[in-house]
């Protein structure tokens, strides 16, 4: 069974490989065809709208919406759990839906609180 599952995924790996095979020549041909004029170092500066770049390109940057990212970490797992339940829905008894509803209720309460926190300003 595990070997069969792996075999199912081999075309995906082939496809990844084929994507690489199709795109690498494009870059190589482009490298061969295109001019290479490297005498002007200003050309290789990072974009700063025509100005000399100031400050770091990679810096500590705080978007105010990290709360959503933390929520995502929790709810992604929940979503996967719901998938396993949904795919087995016809096989399990109907009474088994109730715990799922209870689980969803707990998650909704947690999510409501998290959204309330995320909506508040000044904590990030």
């Amino acid at each position, binding site marked *: 069974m595990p070997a069969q599952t792996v075999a*199912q995924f081999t075309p995906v790996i082939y496809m*990844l490989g084929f994507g690489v095979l199709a795109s690498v020549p494009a870059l190589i041909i482009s490298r061969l065809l295109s001019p290479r004029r490297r005498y002007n170092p200003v050309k290789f500066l990072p974009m700063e*709208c025509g100005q000399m770049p100031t400050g770091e390109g990679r810096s500590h940057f705080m978007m105010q919406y990290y709360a959503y990212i933390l929520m995502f970490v929790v709810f992604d797992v929940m979503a996967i759990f719901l998938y396993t339940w949904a795919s087995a829905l016809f096989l399990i008894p109907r009474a088994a839906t109730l715990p799922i509803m209870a689980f969803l209720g707990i998650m909704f309460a947690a999510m409501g609180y998290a959204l309330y926190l995320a909506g508040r300003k000044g904590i990030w």
Partner: protein
Amino acid sequence: MATYPQEYRFGKFIASIVWVVLWIVIIISLIGLPIIFVILFYVPLPPVNGEVLTPYLFLSMMVDPTRTLPIVHFIIHTDIFKVAVFPGFSFAALFAAVTIFVERKFLAKMQLRIGPLYCGKIEGILQLLADGLKLIAKEIIIPSGADKPIFWAAPIAFVATSAAVVALIPVAPGWVAANVNVGIIAVFAILGFFPLIALLFSWASNSKYPFIGGLRALHQMIAFEIPFFLSALSAVILSGSLNLTDIAKAQHPYWYIFFLPISAFVFFISSLAELERIPFDLPEAESEIVAGWLTETSGMIFGLIQLGSYVKVYALSALFVILFLGGWAGPQIFPKELSHGPTAGLMGLLTLQGVYNGVTVNAIFWFVVKTFGIIMLMLLPRGISPRIRIDILLHTGWYKLIVLTFINMFIALALIYGGILGPGGLLTGH
């Protein structure tokens, strides 16, 4: 220095064609055929149609082209063909190219413009080729301080990842590169790579605007990942399977869009956000952060990322068709067989005897038509909508779309437990 064209004569033109044909015949007969013979003698080939492919059989194929059809039949059922050509990469890339061209013309018509006109004489049909040539001939500039390996690898990874999504999409019964039992989860797993690539690329380019754009891409995809997941969940509940082919087959009499319109709407909106198309193109918002995470791309790096994103457009609209529009289902408009009785020679080749399958062709036709319709719908917001703002976007994703998906999930559950759908339901097909 001006050069004057030589005097044009039709006879010279004909003569040049004759010369070219002559040279081709000579080269094939003196070089091509011996090489094929050598290959056929020394390389063992799989038996086709009960016969081993030998030079004699090959020669007989030249006399009777119908004899090549078993070979064609063999080839198109190999994994390599499926990956490289038909449901796989080339098909998706062709779809992407058509999408780009149609988008330009369609948008132009919407904006009372003409669009590409000159390149290729007929409505600028070769414009894409010209653009591709231009991109290939452009210098790739890597900003100083950039992380070079990642900078080179990111566009390749982008194309490869979107191709990997395509591998999971069934186009017709049996026509899928990878028929995976957990297909829909695999699709979402692969789609999860895209924010990673965007973030890596923006971090690697050592510039401020890509950095902000990458962060925005991350936030956007995260905000819409959950609605995206959960809207597909309703289709899984109704069909009871994670396999995409099974989900498509399960909607035999009635498409799921009739039961799950809210889910379909949420899925459509989320896939627009996933694709970074207007109105959700804020990772590339050009009036705020120059070009977002694509600011430092140049030449073919930009071209590959565009190719990847249009392949993604195809993949996600195909997914929409499979989940909600019944996949390839549609009235049979192609004849079951093109010819009756055995035909040989050129006629047999034209009717693709033994290869032609009316049902499959019909399925592919309807699939292409539906997918194209969804692609057109995806192009439409670009002409009628301004860009959304990030806080409104996050608010929409988390507060509205998730609630909507749950509403439709409960509707789906009610349909199952009310005995309308599901095994033995009122509306279940056979």
